[in-house]
């Protein structure tokens, strides 16, 4: 019962935060003039002549709270407006770009978390030894690297020097043509998965070659956070009584680290993984722009430079919802794993 109460309380809080997020977005929206905002509803250049009637219909010259009501009604009915950068409705564009971003996240997120945990625990076990210094140094470098520059340097080496070994974009033109043809069934629109489902290995290889550099870029830059948290929580766990007890009972170093220290040290990493997702989305914007992968991040970056307001606002809303929901899931998982949270 207690657990259920906890979840209900969290969901209620989520609603409050989401309303707050829409308020912030709306505050950003009011920085634009009514004419600029009316462009969200214009699909055809001919409509520009009666821009005043659009302003009237959507109530863009009304008081702020009335506008908020109109706007939230539009958003709730799924009408985010028209994205001028890609000439589609925002919802269509979102559905179109989502699979490519999911693909990128699908390969980077596990890599960041697993490698980060591994490096962090190695670093803690060998505290103040060369291994520790080396991994910490790497983490600090990764933390300081400008994502956009690192991606460009990788391209310079692996696309320029090794003539086209790991190219930018999503697929080579041959593979792209085949993927778009009728012979290829697009189940998920995630290329690597579809290629395997269709049994076309060469498309899979092509997609992976295009994925290598973006995944490396994202991982190197984001891994530092997981490593740092894992290291410090592992250090704390290693000093705890239960580790001493395990050692006193004659457990080997391997068992002590794997079964006793690391399991307990994982909890703080679970806590930050929601935050990690938010960071990942920011990295995705830059990475997709550098490698010209047409995903959500690429779309948002182009929208931001071309004053495509509906797309940018959708980016903020999507990220807010994503962050709040992942945090909710993480908290529930956390309460499930750790009884102290549930009962406290």
């Amino acid at each position, binding site marked *: 019962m207690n657990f259920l109460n906890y979840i209900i309380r969290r969901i209620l809080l989520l609603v*409050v*935060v989401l309303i*707050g*997020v829409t*308020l*912030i*977005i709306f505050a*950003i*929206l009011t*920085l*634009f003039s009514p004419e600029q905002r009316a462009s969200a509803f214009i699909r055809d250049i001919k409509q520009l002549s009666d821009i005043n009637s659009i302003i009237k219909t959507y109530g863009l010259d009304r008081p702020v709270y009335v506008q908020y009501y109109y706007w939230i009604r539009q958003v709730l009915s799924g009408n985010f407006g028209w994205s001028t950068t890609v000439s589609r409705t925002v919802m269509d564009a979102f559905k179109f770009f989502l699979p490519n971003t999911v693909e990128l996240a699908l390969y980077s997120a596990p890599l960041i978390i697993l490698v980060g945990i591994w490096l962090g625990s190695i670093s803690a076990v060998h505290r103040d030894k060369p291994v520790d210094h080396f991994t910490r140094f790497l983490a*600090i*470098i990764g*933390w*300081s*690297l*400008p*994502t*956009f*520059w*690192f991606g*460009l*340097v990788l*391209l*310079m080496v692996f*696309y*320029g*020097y090794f*003539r086209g070994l790991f190219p930018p974009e999503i697929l080579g033109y041959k593979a792209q043509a085949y993927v778009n043809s009728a012979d290829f069934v697009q189940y998920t629109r995630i290329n690597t998965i579809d290629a395997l489902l269709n049994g076309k290995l060469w498309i899979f290889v092509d997609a992976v070659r295009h994925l290598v550099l973006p995944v490396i870029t994202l991982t190197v830059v984001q891994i530092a956070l997981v490593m740092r948290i894992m290291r410090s929580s592992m250090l704390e766990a290693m000093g705890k009584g239960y580790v001493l007890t395990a050692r006193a009972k004659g457990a080997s170093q391997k068992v002590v680290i794997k079964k006793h220290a690391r399991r307990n040290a994982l909890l703080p990493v679970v806590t930050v993984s929601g935050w990690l997702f*938010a*960071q990942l*989305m*920011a990295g995705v*914007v*830059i990475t997709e*722009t550098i490698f010209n992968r047409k995903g959500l991040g690429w779309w*948002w*970056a182009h*929208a*931001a*430079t071309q*004053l495509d*307001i509906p797309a*940018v*606002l959708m*980016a*903020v809303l999507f*990220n*807010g919802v994503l*962050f*709040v929901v992942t*945090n909710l899931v993480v908290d529930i998982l956390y309460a499930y794993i750790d009884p102290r949270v549930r009962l406290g």
Partner: protein
Amino acid sequence: MYFLKKRRVVREFEQHPRLKEFRFSFGKIVKNPLSVTGLSLIFIFFMIAVFAPVISPPKYEHEPFRIPHEGYSIIPNPPGPGHPFGTTTKQYDIFYGVIWGARTAFRIGFMVVGSILIIGIAVGSVSGYFGGIVDEILMRVVDIFMSLPLFILAMAIVTALGRSLDNIMRSLIIVGWPIYARTIRSSILTIREEDFIKAAKALGAGTFKIIFKHILPNAIYPALILASLDIGAMVLTAAALSFLGLGAQEGYADWGQMVSLARNYIVGPQGQPFLFWYVVTIPGLFILFFVLGWNLLGDALRDIFDPKLRRK
């Protein structure tokens, strides 16, 4: 008599606990190789920024941040006489750009972090000291801001304000303060319950005196460490926004904008893949080392001021 009194005052001053703690911390900073490396990097960049007019005299006296360029050829030229680091597309001098870019970086770092520190301290101390409904409202606002990714929110705000370097700084200030407010608040909450605060209250000290003289000096360390780490992070975020094309206009001495200019010259022609290496690599290395300097310092400070590790 006077001489003796003066010596006593000096000795008392030297034994002041805050000064003793400062000396202890300073000793640790100087002995830690990471923080020394970080400090040296920052010092080098500081010198570059201060002596920019000497190292690279401006061509346009009233607009020193405008990078001089000779001609409009879009093909970059390699390092040579007159252009130690070569020229980027449209013949902007890379050396001039990176030298004056150091000033831009310091301006972004100090302005953004300084502003969010002030806002964070103000909101955090009000929230932490008064508590109750004020605290509840302020912290829900902080929650809402912190549930949006900093980079994407900043991107949206720059889009709304219009693209320019100043607007990047404004947007980073708007999105950056909440975490400071929360940090200050939580350290105030622990200090508020300490005995010396009760003693100060019992002696009749006013609210402002208690906040500024007794609570803040003890509560501010976590925020200061966060700030030293954030100078690097904010410069990095500003550079990324500039790279996307939301920053200063073309030809402004800003590292992010210079990397952005280099985007079309990553890969050289057939047979010479690294022909234009200098265009991308040099401004990027300046960003990397600047941010690295602040991160090394902040990282070492965090270990030094961590109460769990401090006296070990």
